[in-house]
């Protein structure tokens, strides 16, 4: 390092500015993508040019419009049964979104309650809860899902149940850690000195202080749930056919990858884009709300 270099700080100011711009981009773009997804899911019947299930054997395997032989009538082309890919991708958003919303609602609630109880009250119950959590964390959800699909038959309910049955564990683990830390906090001791009941402490003092990590982990898990749902659909353990889902669409196009690659490509891109957005938004929220959670 030369003396001149020691003196100047210009490079840093520039990189701080760039970091700021980048941070804003990682907020607006993912937020827009997710908003679009929600809108697409809600207004799918109005947005989609065709019915997602209407087959037209005369219109089989039309490539997307930007390829020779494609037409603007089917912007993203058609599949082996002549169904419009764009319409199916739009309707597929419904499955991804409804599954992930429901799953996140269920898992975050269970995980938070168990986590706070295990963390604040502790004791034997807490120890047992945490061993169960550890094992649940290490168990591949996909196998449980397959098991359930075989037992109960593939359906919307099965998918939600299968992802939720282990999905609460990451929440419980994180929230327990936070609750353990908060239990030792001086303001909790102070609440006891004042005479607050354990319930009041958990609700008024512990819970508000874990909302931030909760929001962060919930946002980050949107992507994970969508990926798991897609994988289940791909394997045929997801929501049964005729309902269009992204994972199943990729599966449909799998054997035609060398000739009709668009059947697999677009739904796969949709998954990637949405998951990417969820992750970026989660990262942004984490930096804003709780930078300690780098590990997530």
């Amino acid at each position, binding site marked *: 390092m030369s003396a001149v270099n020691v003196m100047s700080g210009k490079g840093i100011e520039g990189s701080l500015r760039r970091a700021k711009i980048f941070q804003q981009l990682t907020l607006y773009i993912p937020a827009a993508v997710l908003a679009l997804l929600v809108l697409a899911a809600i207004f799918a019947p109005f947005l989609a040019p065709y019915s997602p299930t209407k087959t037209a054997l005369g219109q089989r395997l039309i490539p997307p419009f930007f390829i020779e032989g494609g037409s603007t009538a089917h912007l993203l082309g058609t599949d082996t049964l002549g169904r419009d890919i764009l319409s199916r991708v739009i309707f597929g958003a419904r499955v991804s979104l409804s599954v992930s919303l429901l799953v996140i609602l269920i898992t975050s609630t269970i995980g938070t309650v168990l986590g706070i109880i295990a963390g604040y009250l502790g004791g034997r119950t807490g120890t047992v809860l945490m061993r169960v959590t550890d094992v649940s964390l290490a168990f591949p959800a996909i196998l449980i899902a397959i098991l359930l699909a075989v037992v109960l038959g593939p359906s919307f309910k099965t998918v939600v149940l299968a992802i939720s049955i282990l999905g609460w564990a990451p929440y419980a683990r994180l929230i327990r850690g936070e609750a353990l830390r908060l239990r030792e906090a001086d303001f909790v*001791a102070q609440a006891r000195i004042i005479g607050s009941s354990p319930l009041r402490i958990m609700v008024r003092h512990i819970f508000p202080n874990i909302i931030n990590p909760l929001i962060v982990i919930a946002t980050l898990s949107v992507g994970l749930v969508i990926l798991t749902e897609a994988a289940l659909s791909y394997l045929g353990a997801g929501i049964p056919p005729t309902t269009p889902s992204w994972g199943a669409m990729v599966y449909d196009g799998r054997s035609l990858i060398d000739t009709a690659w668009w059947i697999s490509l677009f739904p796969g891109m949709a998954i990637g884009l949405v998951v990417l957005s969820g992750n970026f938004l989660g990262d942004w929220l984490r930096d804003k709300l709780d930078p300690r959670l780098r590990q997530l």
Partner: protein
Amino acid sequence: MADVLLEGRDLTKHYPISHGLLQRTVGWVRAVDGVSFTIERGKTLSLVGESGAGKTTTAKAVLLLERLTSGSILFEGKDLQRFSKSQLKTEYRPRVQAVQQNPWSSMNPRMRVRDIIAEPLVVNTRQSKKEVRSRVLELLAQVGIGADCAGHYPHEFSGGQRQRIAVARALALNPSLVVLDEPVSALDVSIRAQIMNLLKDLQAQYNLSYLVIAHNLATVRYMSHSVAIMYMGQIVEYGDAEELFERPLHPYTRALMSASLLTLPGDEDQGIKQIILSGEMPSPLNPPTGCRFHTRCIEARDVCSKVEPELIVKGKQRVRCHHVVYRRP
């Protein structure tokens, strides 16, 4: 006859040490071992000692945050063990409040200042929203925080201001006793004096009793009426603050005092010599036989390692030492 507000009689707290597969208890850590003291109405008692002396555990017992192994606490002459759960909740808890050491962690970061100060009132009384509101403003004025700050969150304040807010919260229920756990040690030097002066003013105004936990003797001299010096779970010297600082009887007290005296370089040449203790506080798992301080005491004799000294009365003080000598530090 002094007006005693709270009395601790022979307080003892032993933590079990377990070992082996079946977690058999193989020994006890004697965190607090037979500690007795009285706090008079409107007066300050300070518990002074280094980490591991048991002062914090004693304070926690008074605040009901820690269950005692044995001993009793008498509040206005009544034994707390005779209190029912609901009596403790209505007659004891509200009257014994606390200010903690670290103003950064003693407040829920998600609550506004007005809710933080109001919480004791909400939990313990049935006052209307309006009453609570006016009480909060009154308290804020008492500790010198502007009423316009009531809607702010704790992180918007400096350490000194936060400690003022903590004091306001402790006073909300008009307590008789406030436990001050190292109330200024987390603050900057220039801020400490502000808070200590405030605490003294409030004591005079409301006839408050203080139980101060401290490791710094100099802080304590300014604040307290009586002082108890603790070492390894026991009180080694206890008495009127002025007497104790003028005539420390226990060698440990003298060492502590020496450590917090202002000695300038070159003082040694003028015959002012610091007392430097050798060694460290032994493990509380197996405390030394005889006097617990004998391993580090410069004046220890044979008897000290064999016979445990009692807390004996010497003039206005009580001291736990076999060979009390009057000597200025």
